[in-house]
């Protein structure tokens, strides 16, 4: 499969994402610079973490107007799979591809640590290979990851199974203490209505090898690959 990993000025998880996809999972992946207007033959897009455009004004606010994001809008509108990680999640929210916004962590601290995630549904291309009883140990590294949306949006997300991951403790309980940033309803990641665009604050690309302390992030990419391969088989038939 071919992955496009976007690069904005001050993206800093682009190389980790490319490494995980290409060197660890053995797929083809290439960088797509923010000034490009086409995603080429990409089967899926990764919007990586970092501080796009210095995160000036608001996180992701300037990146969403870049030429490459117009291509991502078209790609997503055509049903293409898009995963935003950390700053990528912020960019997708700013772009209106996902509802809500990410604001300053309630503690005001930049949090850099391993957290546990509970997967709430396997009904998405991003979670289809994750056993629901398996907690994912994945690192976070952000200062503005507190998910906010109004009550109506939160209820809609919950009712439509669009909350993909919640922060939990080592026992899988959704508690205030296991919430690293104050996200409403412990939300760590969500998807859009059509279920082809998702974003999460934790970094699965940093948890794909045992040497890094966890391989749990692979399950998210393996879900994505499984969904892409199923789609390719369906299209060929």
């Amino acid at each position, binding site marked *: 499969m071919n992955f496009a990993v976007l690069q904005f000025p001050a993206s800093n998880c682009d190389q980790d994402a490319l490494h995980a996809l290409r060197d660890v999972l053995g797929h083809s992946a290439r960088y797509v610079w923010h000034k490009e207007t086409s995603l080429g033959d990409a089967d899926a897009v990764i919007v990586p973490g970092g501080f796009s455009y210095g995160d000036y*004004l*608001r996180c992701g*606010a300037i990146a969403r107007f870049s030429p490459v994001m117009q291509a991502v809008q078209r790609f997503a509108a055509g049903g293409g799979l898009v995963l935003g990680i950390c700053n990528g999640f912020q960019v997708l929210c700013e772009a209106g591809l996902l509802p809500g*916004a990410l*604001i300053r962590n309630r503690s*005001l601290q930049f949090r850099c640590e391993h957290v546990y995630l509970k997967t709430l549904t396997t009904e998405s291309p991003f979670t289809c290979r994750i056993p629901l009883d398996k907690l994912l140990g994945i690192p976070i590294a952000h200062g503005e990851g507190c998910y*906010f949306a109004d009550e109506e949006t939160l209820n809609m997300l919950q009712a439509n199974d669009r909350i993909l991951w919640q922060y939990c403790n080592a026992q899988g309980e959704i508690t205030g203490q296991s919430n690293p940033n104050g996200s409403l309803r412990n939300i760590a990641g969500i998807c859009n209505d059509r279920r082809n665009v998702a974003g999460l604050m934790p970094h699965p690309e940093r948890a794909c090898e045992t040497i890094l302390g966890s391989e749990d992030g692979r399950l998210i990419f393996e879900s994505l690959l499984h969904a892409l391969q199923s789609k390719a088989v369906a299209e060929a038939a």
Partner: protein
Amino acid sequence: MKARIVITPKKAVVDPQGKAVQNALEHMGYGGINAVHVGKYLEIELNGADRETARRQLDEACHKFLSNPVIEDYKLEIE
């Protein structure tokens, strides 16, 4: 002409920065403070002459780009 734009967090949004500043003020002994909201201030120098056109354009820019309506309110003044 000059536009002044003040962007503040919506009341429903938790504002930990505002809370931290309020706590610090109280700790310093400044009383009578009910709440603090930390936002952003933008000053935009304009070279057009038509105030109404400027207002319309900046209002659109505030809505689309300069503020995020999910979490922020803005006030636009042109002088």
